[in-house]
């Protein structure tokens, strides 16, 4: 056991767990942030994508010792809290309107990959968007509406 310190969605956290414990398990089980999903446990599906210092990673492949001191962003941090309830991030809003989420299990990871793409200055270019989410499998949508949603959020609306 060691103590690992990092920030999740802007909040500092400290966990006492074995260093090889998966970041995914730390988030889901130790920090009760179950928005991040597990689809395969071997870095193929991208459902567990979170941002580590702004970069999308598969949290099932990252031991917690590697994120000591890092900034972690998960799906729970996208919407902004307000007295009336959460206000969706423009990316979440675009997914909702365009039909980018169906069963929703790939959605948290997909949103984080897309958030990293947009934060990196990505625009409404179809190939660039598809490349940015190529590590995130979706079995429901055929990707068309996900690509549309990201393009909308990138400022390509209408």
């Amino acid at each position, binding site marked *: 056991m060691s103590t690992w310190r990092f920030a999740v969605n802007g909040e500092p956290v400290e966990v006492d767990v074995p260093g090889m414990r998966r970041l995914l398990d730390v988030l889901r089980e130790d920090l009760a942030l179950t928005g991040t999903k597990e689809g395969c446990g071997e870095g193929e599906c991208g459902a567990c994508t979170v941002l580590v210092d702004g970069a999308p990673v598969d949290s099932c492949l990252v031991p917690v010792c590697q994120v000591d001191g890092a900034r972690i962003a998960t799906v729970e941090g996208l919407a902004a809290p307000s007295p009336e309830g959460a206000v969706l991030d423009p990316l979440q809003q675009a997914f909702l309107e*365009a039909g980018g*989420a*169906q069963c929703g299990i790939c959605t948290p990871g997909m949103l984080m990959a897309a958030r990293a793409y947009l934060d990196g200055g990505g625009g409404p270019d179809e190939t660039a968007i598809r490349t940015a989410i*190529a590590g*995130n*499998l979706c079995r429901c949508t*055929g990707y068309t509406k996900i690509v549309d949603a990201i393009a909308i959020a990138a400022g390509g609306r209408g």
Partner: protein
Amino acid sequence: MTIRTSPSRTTTPVTPSPAAPDALVVRRGALLPGRVRPAAPLRREGPAKLTGEAKYADDLVFPGAWYGATIRSADAHARFDGFDLDPALDWSSVAVVTAADIPGENIVSLISDDQPVLVPVGGEIQHHAEPLVLLAAADRETLRSARHAVTIRTTPLEPVFDPLASEHVFAHYEIASGDLDAGFAEADFILEGEYRVGHQEQLYIENNAMIAVPREDGGVAVHGSLQCPYYIHKALKRSLRLTAEQARVVQAETGGGFGGKEEYPSIIALHAALLARRTGKPVRMIYDRHEDLAATTKRHPAIVTHRTGVKADGTLVAQDIDVVMDGGAYCTLTPVVLSRGAIHAGGPYRCPNVRIRARATRTNTPPNGAFRGFGAPQVEFAAEVQLGRLAETLGMSPLEIRRRNLYRIGDETPTGQILRESVAAEDVLERAAEAAEFEGVRSRTAKARARRAGSGHVPGSPLRTSRDRSASGIGVALAWHGAGFTGSGEVKLASVASVELGGDGRVRILTGSTEMGQGTKTIFPQLVAAELGLAADEVDMAAQDTALVPDSGPTVASRTAMVVGGLLIQAARRLRATVEERNAGAAFADVRARDAATHGPTRIDQQFEPYPHVHFDDDTYRGDAYPAFGWAACVATVDVDLDSGEVTVRDVVAADDIGTVIHPVLAEGQVEGGTLQAIGYATIEEIKLRHGRYLNDRLATYIIPTALDAPRIHAILVEAPFSGAPHGAKGVGELPMDVGAPAVVAAIHDAVGAWIHELPASPERILAALGTTRPVDGAPASAEVAAAIAEPIEAGTDPRPGAATDPQPMRGPRDPGEPT
């Protein structure tokens, strides 16, 4: 983007019916062209899914829960002699459950009683992933140690892996119409073909998961990822000897199903419940991807042979079709999968003389089961490739041969069903062809192919001399899909759905139909709200919990919008009439609160009643196999790498007639998603087996299309309403799955001149068909491929555009890769 159309703008008339006015529900809000319809509501559970708040099974926390695991067979066929527990392990902290611990019947309740919950010691193991022993422990580490400390003892038995050789037949059907011999005698050409498809995994991104919680009354509550709560409810009652109240099934948010969570969850629920009963603790049975891929159901592999008689003008006169499906080790849903396959085997085409023989047999492989399309994608792939080869033989356009034969109003199907209404085969075909500019693109690909064909190969080398390193092609396919359960299935189900005006004046929908991404929770309130004059968000949905909601039948067979949606509309109409009658005709929306305060809750239970004029005889297989059919056309454009054989599907246009469109965004989502699953089936998805075991049982090796593999899919929704449903909807889920694969294979043929007879059209198969290499197993994939290897495509002999209009008569199978 997508194009939305309204019906009846083509030559196909849609017969008006007494119920037709009801199909046009006037609702508030924005109007779409051609129909009076409001803007569709946003996905109801969308915000919860987008913020991470939605709770899927593995997200649920039950304090003190134990973890469960399944010890499975490693043999395909064996006698289970017993098992040993390593004495070095402290077994006092591990629960061990065997078949002897099952209080009720050791049967997974479904169509046939052949599948055990756990194989008993002394019993027969039928496949390599068969559950034998269950374990549970308070923590994962103990459980992991325990799993490795169990040794299974077996005596191997001779397995059967070839469905053609298997003598154990789960089901067989024969459908016949007309006079087959007379039909072939009348034919100018006869073409034979054999087509094969393998397993396909549903690959929902959320693995199967179930948590069982003991109840104080001796029963159990299970929370899980599932499509059919009442299937599980029935299974629990039977094997655990529980009353209806003691068995409770609650759906957690479900991360995709596609049929893969139709029947298998019953087994997982039973296992978790047995362990919960033993330990007195909640038990979590959460499959990882490997276990889910290795053990749960797949799409049935099939071998389909066609012998088709056709007139010189392309008119079909005889179809003799033989379908063999591999059921795997247990019956599961195989008889109904096969039944749907048999009924759809001829494709959406009029043919006066037909014989369809279908059988499904047992092999010592994990049981196959439900997957979107349910028997139809296998047979429609075969039917469409066969028709494409016929067109090539006759020198006809693939579009033209379809126009000549497709079903129209008044035509009769092989079961003797007269298609009285809602037939949009021509409509979807023309719209897809037009949007994809099919004939124009095809004439360009033909020119490119003729130019390339002059090059030949460098002798003794797989290299081609042409500078072209890739070839483009365009292909079309047409399909039909029976809406709802086959035959008298809906009558037997007798589903119930309810609408309730609560004491608080809120309206609530009570139904066992589940949400798994397709939009149940959005369209049901939308439909009910429209009937009651309310906004969609003024109608609540009760949880899919067997303690709360009635059995609305399983969430399968593209039946939810059509059948259960129809029940809810009828219930809402009755509720409205009841309330308005006792409030002097005042509008429901205005008086509901007052009515509730005065009269208390009012609940309307609506039970399914047979659609008028729909009759089917299950014994003779004659009659109306489905109340209505959906119709779909797909045009695919591909690039084939001539060096590697790799296929890139560049563009797809999918036109689907789904009856009245309830929610355009969700319906397009179904078409787009189903189309991509079909493209995966066509190009990359394949299960490899060795000794009855899946070799690629991980996501690293069973691959599905990524965003970069996926084409942009243009969905066109066509509406030919079905008068039997109060809203005119026919269902959308499965239809697009039937048509994508043959369109891709036709496009590959258009690109390179070779037909691929076996899915997926992998690089290996394409290179083999091109004659540049041989299949990996060293043997040609078929006699036709062998001929193609012997004789590569030659210059200037392409029969298609501008080809002779008087092709040579021929009998027997024609080499697909050979020029005319």
